[in-house]
């Protein structure tokens, strides 16, 4: 049962679908997931994300999930565009599917570029995405930094649906450090709390990545408990305001993910000593500038008026 690792598709290669006859031109490799590779492709001047699977069953499972999501979440844009096979240069058939291309950067790149002030909002968007999935009867499963893209104004997107599992079944795919079972904090059954747990770890990974890696290296399995994650949260100024929320996520005591998202948002809006709201220098300068201008124009008015 060897899993075929097909050769990488070179930029410029044209792929023709066997069933639907669509033609795609490979632009570049976007990423490599657990179940295959994702390329940026072009068809009739529109860019798409194109996923080639190593295994027909795994890929088809993902397609099934995406289709069922599209049916249940009619509000969302249909992101599954095409499902087909192509014949590779190795003479074998490779299954692929095509999705809407989501432009965005990784969460850490985004916060580095735009500032950590965006974190609460991005988090809220992400929680809403998860709540949407949960509402349709699914759990994302493999939530981790690599599977989140952030677009303009902190709009977070989930990518790679390989781990998406029906509520009540087992989580299909997960990553150890984000896994509730790994931290002795519960089962690997798909429930909304599973995603919220991973979300809490994702927050820790974002701000305390080094310490988290250190923990996973040094802790004995029996000592891998959420309390260790809480220590990192308490010690980080960006996470501390959310400590209560994160604790509930790690304990699985958020009963409803919509409510959890709303609670997160309330924390994000909470005014107070958390932020020393210093007026940015450019704003102070602008204010000074306009005051001077005002004074000058008043003087001018008074003089000419007289």
């Amino acid at each position, binding site marked *: *049962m060897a899993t075929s690792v097909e050769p990488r598709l070179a930029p410029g290669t044209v792929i023709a679908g066997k*069933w639907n006859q669509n033609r795609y031109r490979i632009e570049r490799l976007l990423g490599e997931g657990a179940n295959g590779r994702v390329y940026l492709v072009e068809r009739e001047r529109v860019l798409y994300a194109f996923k080639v699977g190593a295994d*027909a*069953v795994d890929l*088809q*499972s993902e*397609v*099934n999930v995406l*289709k069922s999501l599209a049916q249940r979440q009619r509000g969302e844009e249909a992101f599954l565009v095409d*499902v*087909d*096979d192509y014949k590779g240069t190795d003479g074998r*058939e490779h*299954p692929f599917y095509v999705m809407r291309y989501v432009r965005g950067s990784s969460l850490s790149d985004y916060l580095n570029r735009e500032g950590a002030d965006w974190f609460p909002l991005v988090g809220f968007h992400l929680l809403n995405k998860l709540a949407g999935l949960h509402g349709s009867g699914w759990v994302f499963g493999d939530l981790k930094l690599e599977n989140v893209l952030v677009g303009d104004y902190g709009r977070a997107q989930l990518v790679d649906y390989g781990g998406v599992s029906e509520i*009540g*079944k*087992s*989580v299909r795919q997960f990553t*150890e450090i984000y896994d509730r*079972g*790994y931290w002795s904090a519960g*089962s*690997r*059954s*798909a429930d909304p709390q599973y995603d919220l747990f991973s979300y809490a770890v994702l927050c820790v990974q974002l701000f305390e990545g080094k310490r988290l890696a250190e923990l996973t290296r040094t802790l004995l*399995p029996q000592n891998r408990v959420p309390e260790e994650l809480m220590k990192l949260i308490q010690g980080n100024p960006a996470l501390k305001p959310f400590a209560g929320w994160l604790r509930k996520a790690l304990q699985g005591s958020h009963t409803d993910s919509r409510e959890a998202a709303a609670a997160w948002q309330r924390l994000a809006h909470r005014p107070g000593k958390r932020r020393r709201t210093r007026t940015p220098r450019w704003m102070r300068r602008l204010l000074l500038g306009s005051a001077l201008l005002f004074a000058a124009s008043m003087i001018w008015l008074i003089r000419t008026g007289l």
Partner: protein
Amino acid sequence: MRQILLITDGCSNVGVSPVVAAAHAQSEGITVNVVGVLDQEEAVDYGAPEIHEIARAGGGLSRMVAMRELARTVQMMTRKTVMHTIQSAVHKELQQVFGATSLEELSPDKRGEVVRVIDELGETSPLEVALLIDTSASMKPKMKAVEEAIHDLMLSLQARQGKSRISVFRFPGSRHGAECAQVLEWTDSAAGLPSLFAKITMQGTTPTGPALMHVIDFYRQDKYGRDNREETDGMRSGNVG
């Protein structure tokens, strides 16, 4: 669905060839997966050819991994094997129903239907995994990682909707020259998995083949017992030693 998962770090050196034993297992519908645990930082995998051969004969997968990869590998292999077992069964049906020899011959729509069935069966079919652990002397520093992997596997199996259980065997069995001994009876719960290998004296020989035969025999008798008594928990204590 029945699997044997062999965790070892070297070459067998006593008794019947483990490749022959694995082929026996395969013929009885038991899939044999093999994980070779590498020494820390050391990439000498002199056992690798045999490990791959055993898995090939047993219709399963084989991997050489470092200790910290062990839990993840065991979990992933078990899952893959479940899916593969179901796929092979479904492929036979495919031929009869659609006249197709592979999934790729079906149109994407039909394929979607078939995979839905595969996924459903993968989640709900009963599963038994007998873990066969090499406890020869060189495995000693790796036993913590093995215990963790067993615990982790149980955690994943518990989340399945289908009935899943594991049993653990070690080889060699004891000082008295037994090839194999059961250290954990069939269980479906990770809660309180005992520290399996704490009291065990680790020693020399590696009778991989005879140990495999022993586990196949255990499966066979287990099945026989259940067929006769029609009990759901047709297990036997299986203490050999």
